[in-house]
C-alpha cells in the first residue's frame, strides 16, 4: 500500500520553482529518503506534504487522504520533525510531549503511557522534568523525534534529522530511527544532504536537485549503476584520456573533472595495471590513482554532474534557500 503518493507536485514562489512536478510513492514500513543539496526543494516538499504549504499545482495523498482537501485527516496521520527545532523552550520535556498529546486528542491514560514509551525510546526519561532550554542540541532533536511519535503516526517526516549534530549524536539518532521503524512499524520519509545518512538509513532514495527528482531506486541498485568499484585518477591530458577510456566496453560512467577522471569498473584492483598500459600507449601520465567502493556521492555526481560537496554550490544554494524562507514565513534570518 502506498502511504505517500504524489502526482506532479509543484510549488513556485514568486516565479521561482522550488519543487517542479515531482511524482513518487512511498510504501508502508519503508524508510524513504530525499537526497539533495541545500535548496534542492526537500523542505518545500515536506511542507506541502504536511499541509503547511499549499501546492501551486499537482496533488498528493498521505494514507489515501488528499493533502489539499482532507487536511485534518492528513494531519492526524503524520508526525513531523522540522529542520529547525520547534520546541517550547520554557516547558520541560514531559510538558512538551503532553502539549503535543493533548493537541492530538490523546486520552489521559494514552498520554501517560505514550510519554513514558517514547521517552524511553530516545533515552530521555531522566531528563523529562528539565526545562527544554537547558537541553543540548542532540537532546532537543531526540525529544522532537519522540514527540513526532507520540500519536503513533502512520508516517513520520524527518527534515534533515541530524543537521548540525556531532558524529556521535548522529550515530545515536540513526539508531533511534532504525529502531522505531522496526519496533513501531512507522513509515519514515526523511530528507538529508548527507550521503552517509541516506546510505545507512534508507531502503530507497530519491535524488532531488533544482526541484526535480533525477532518479528513485534502492541504495544498492543506485550504487551499481555507477559500477562495482569507482576509480578516480589524476593525469595529464584529461580530455584525450577520457575519450580513450570511454571506448572501452568494461568502463562505465566516465566523468571528467578539472584534472581528474572518475569511472566505474568491475573488480577495480585488477583493472589498474590495464589502465596504466592504456595510459602508456596513449602517452598520458597518471600522477595518482584511487580505487574505492561507490558511495551515494558518486551516484549523485553521475546524475547531476557535480559533487554535493562543492563548496560554491553549497553557499549559493543555501543563500537562495534563505531568501525563499524569507518569502515563505516573512521572517528575518
Amino acid at each position, binding site marked *: 500500500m502506498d502511504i505517500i503518493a504524489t502526482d506532479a507536485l509543484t510549488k513556485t514562489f514568486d516565479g521561482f520553482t522550488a519543487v517542479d512536478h515531482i511524482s513518487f510513492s512511498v510504501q508502508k514500513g519503508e524508510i524513504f529518503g530525499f537526497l539533495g543539496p541545500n535548496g534542492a526543494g526537500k523542505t518545500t516538499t515536506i511542507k506541502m506534504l*504536511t*499541509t*503547511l504549504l*499549499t501546492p501551486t499545482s499537482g496533488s498528493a495523498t498521505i494514507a489515501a487522504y488528499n493533502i489539499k482537501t482532507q487536511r*485534518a*485527516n492528513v*494531519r*492526524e496521520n*503524520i508526525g*513531523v520533525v*522540522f529542520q*529547525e*527545532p*520547534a*520546541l*517550547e*523552550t*520554557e*516547558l520541560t520535556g514531559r*510538558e512538551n510531549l*503532553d*502539549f*503535543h498529546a*493533548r*493537541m*492530538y*486528542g490523546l486520552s489521559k491514560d494514552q498520554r501517560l503511557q505514550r510519554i513514558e514509551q517514547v521517552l524511553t525510546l530516545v533515552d530521555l526519561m531522566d531528563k523529562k522534568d528539565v*526545562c527544554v532550554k537547558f537541553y543540548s542540541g542532540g537532546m532537543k532533536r531526540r525529544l522532537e523525534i519522540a*514527540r513526532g511519535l507520540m500519536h503513533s503516526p502512520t508516517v513520520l517526516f524527518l527534515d534533515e534529522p541530524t543537521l548540525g549534530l556531532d558524529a556521535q549524536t548522529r550515530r545515536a539518532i540513526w539508531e533511534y530511527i532504525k529502531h522505531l521503524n522496526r519496533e513501531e512499524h512507522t513509515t519514515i520519509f526523511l530528507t538529508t544532504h548527507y550521503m552517509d545518512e541516506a546510505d545507512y538509513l534508507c531502503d530507497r532514495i530519491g535524488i532531488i536537485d533544482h526541484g526535480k527528482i533525477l532518479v528513485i531506486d534502492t541504495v544498492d541498485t543506485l550504487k551499481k549503476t555507477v559500477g562495482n568499484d569507482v576509480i578516480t585518477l589524476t593525469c595529464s591530458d584529461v580530455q584525450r584520456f577520457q575519450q580513450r577510456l570511454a571506448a572501452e566496453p568494461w568502463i562505465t560512467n566516465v566523468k571528467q573533472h578539472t584534472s581528474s577522471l572518475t569511472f566505474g569498473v568491475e573488480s577495480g584492483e585488477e583493472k589498474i595495471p590495464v589502465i596504466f598500459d592504456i595510459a602508456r600507449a596513449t602517452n598520458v601520465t597518471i600522477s595518482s590513482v584511487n580505487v574505492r567502493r561507490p558511495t551515494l556521492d558518486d551516484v549523485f555526481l553521475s546524475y547531476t554532474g557535480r559533487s554535493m560537496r562543492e563548496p560554491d554550490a553549497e553557499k549559493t544554494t543555501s543563500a537562495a534557500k534563505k531568501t525563499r524562507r524569507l518569502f515563505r*514565513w*516573512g*521572517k*528575518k534570518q
Partner: protein
Amino acid sequence: MGEETVSHKELQAIYVMWLRQMKRFVRAKSRVVSTIVEPLFFLFILGFGFNIATFPGMEGSYLYFLSPGIIAMAILFSSMFTGVSVLWDRQFGFLQEVLVAPISRLSIVIGRTLGGATVALFQGSLILVIALALGLPIVNVGNIILTVVIMVELSFTAVGFGLIIASKMQDFEGFMSIMNLILMPLLFLSSAFFPISESLPVWLRTLSFANPLFYMIDGIRGSLTGMNNVLDPLVDLAIITFLCVTVMGLGSYLFNKSEA
C-alpha cells in the same frame, strides 16, 4: 458522537494552548515583574505627581481619575504582547508544531486569546485592587461586573490587534517601532492621563473620539467610579463590543491567511 469527540478535541487543544501560556507567564519571572511594576510606576509617579493639579470639570482627585486609565494600559500592553508573540513562535519554529496538529486554526486563535486575556486580566485586576486600596471610590459592587466585562473585551480587542500586526510584520525591530508609533498616541489621546474636555482644541477632541481606546477607558471609568466619564458606560460597552468582534474577526482571518 462523532461531533462530540471532535469538539472535545478542540476544547482540549484550546485548554492546552491556554495552559502553555500560563506556564510561560509564571516561569518568565522578569516578564512577570516588569509587566506588573511598569503600570505601577505610572500609577504612583503620575498619580501622586499630578495629584495637586486640577483640570477644568474634573471631579475627585487626579489619582482616582488616572487609575482606570492605568488599568486599561496594563491590559492593553499585556494583551498586545500576546498577540504579537505569534512572531516569537514563528521565529523559534514552535508555530509549525501547532500548525501541523489536527486542530482548526480558530481553536488555535481562541486558545491563544484566552491565554493572553487571562494574563492581562490578572495584571489589570492587580492594579484595580491597588487602586481600591488607595481609596478609589466605586459606584457600587455590582457595577464592578460591568467593569470586568469591559476589561475582558479590551483584552480580546488588544490580542486581536496584536494578531493583525503580527501577521503583517516581518520582524521584531519593525514590531517595536510600530508599537511605539501606534501605542503612544493611542494612550495620550485616550483620556487615560487627562480629561478630554470642552476646553481642549477641537482637532484633539476629534482625534480622541476616533480613538477606540477612549471608549474602553471611558467605559471603565464610568462603570467603576461613575465620575468624569463622557458617555454612559453601557453606550461605551456597545461600541467596545462592536470593536472587539470586528478586530478579533479580522485578526483570526489574517492569522489563518498568513499561515496558509
